[in-house]
């Protein structure tokens, strides 16, 4: 993903029904772009075998020894 601009963040927040207050826009933009940087980097890691938790987690059984 490319870097989000403050205008884009403002539009996203409006679409989500979340009003931004004084000083919020710049910091939320930095925070979102930090996520884009780090989580975007996960593409370089092989997560093919990594499945998120299933809908009904099985009983994990006794602690491994």
């Amino acid at each position, binding site marked *: 993903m490319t870097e989000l601009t403050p205008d884009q963040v403002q539009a996203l927040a409006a679409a*989500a029904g*979340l009003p931004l*207050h004084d000083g919020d826009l710049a*910091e939320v933009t*930095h925070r979102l772009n930090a996520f884009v940087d780090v989580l975007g980097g996960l*593409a370089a*890691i092989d997560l093919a075998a*990594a499945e998120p938790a299933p809908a009904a987690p099985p009983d994990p059984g006794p*602690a491994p020894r």
Partner: protein
Amino acid sequence: MTADLAYRTAAELAGLIRARTVSPVEVVHAYLTRIDRWDGVLRAYVTVCRARALDEARAAEQALGHGAPVGPLHGVPFAVKDQFDTAGVRTTSGSRLHADRIPTEDATVVARLRAAGGILLGKLNLTEFALGGTLTYPFGQPRNPWDQTRETGGSSSGSGIAAAAALAAATLGEDTGGSVRSPASWCGAVGLRPTWGLVPRSGCVPVAWSMDAPGPLTRSVEDAALLLSIIAGPDGRDRWLQPARTDPRADLERGAGGLSIGVVTRLVDGPDTDAEVRGAVRAAAETLRGLGARVEDVDLPLLPLAGAVFMALADGEAAAWHHPTLAARGAEYDPGTRRRLVTAALLPATLAQQAARARAAIRAQVWDALARYDVLLAPTGPTAAPPIAAAQAPIASRAEAARRFFNRRSYTTPASLAGVPALSLPCGFTAGGLPIGLQLIGRRFDEATLLRAARAYERATDWRARRPPLPG
């Protein structure tokens, strides 16, 4: 005299009260005296239940006089993070939005501590809605008992202060991504995050359903085990709970001989880890080796990503819970909380799903390591407590956002993402006199082994004997 009594552990106080060496009224007075002297500065408490605690102490004293059977915490004053519901006592979650919220029922964990004979002394300060990053605390800025210009760690800030500064016999916090372990580390207490699914969340205002874990903050490993033994197990309300598979106190005094311990090099030797922290944690590993444990380095390469992965998932869950209130009453949130929640609400779904897959991969690395080692060892955080002012500076870049919000959390969130128990206990002090936390991570539902390793280390060192500079 007051301080000597107040610094006793909960287990010691319970024994002294049962033996009628001290009275519950005397013990409650000792804590109220210290709260009166120090809490105006430290701001551990949101609410002190003064009259009620004294009434319950008198009743506890009378029960002893009548020879009635008593519970394991009979007459012992405890305090809980103001995230846990308490019948008839306001529960603010550290927010102006809940400033007048008075529950009608106790959270399960509170009810269990009271049923064990404990006396609720009060409700403890926290970051707003237990999220972390609060800029202005509505109920006072929590301050570190070792240096009042320093942070306490959060979100269970007051629980860390009250345990370390002897403002309660024992406390409860809630750990989603390190909220018990971080204040334990920075304040110099013992903090235990139990296995997810062992301790009921009923009556605890949620942060992130998939990772919230109530746990004790105490002045000793024994007290952490004692409190866990009381609060653990199904309550018929929290549907994901499982019964404890061992008594957490079962192996407490078995020592470290024969344990296998993996030293997590990515955290111990990571670029963010302060040299004093690294030295103290490496020294702790050597102490455990000297006690007969097999100690080896272990490489878990995905762990530095854990902080960002955790925040994408946990904050997303929190944003969903808060969304209606955030949309309608956003201005009433602290700006730090609001910005964190709005960010999570706007995170693209594809990135959130990538984070969910990364959680599975991190969990697999942690579980695989715990198949080879009884316990993993790491710093609880990269540094000792930083200055309060540093956390309040504006975020000026994406790199600053990543550094401040993700990096530190990569130390505590691997256990949260993997659903395993983890504990922080003091393992030294910086040259400036601030506590350093050692983190031990254990297998799911095997708190007994985790506490055994922690107790062996605690017994071999004298860090626990040090007290913050708060006389009286």
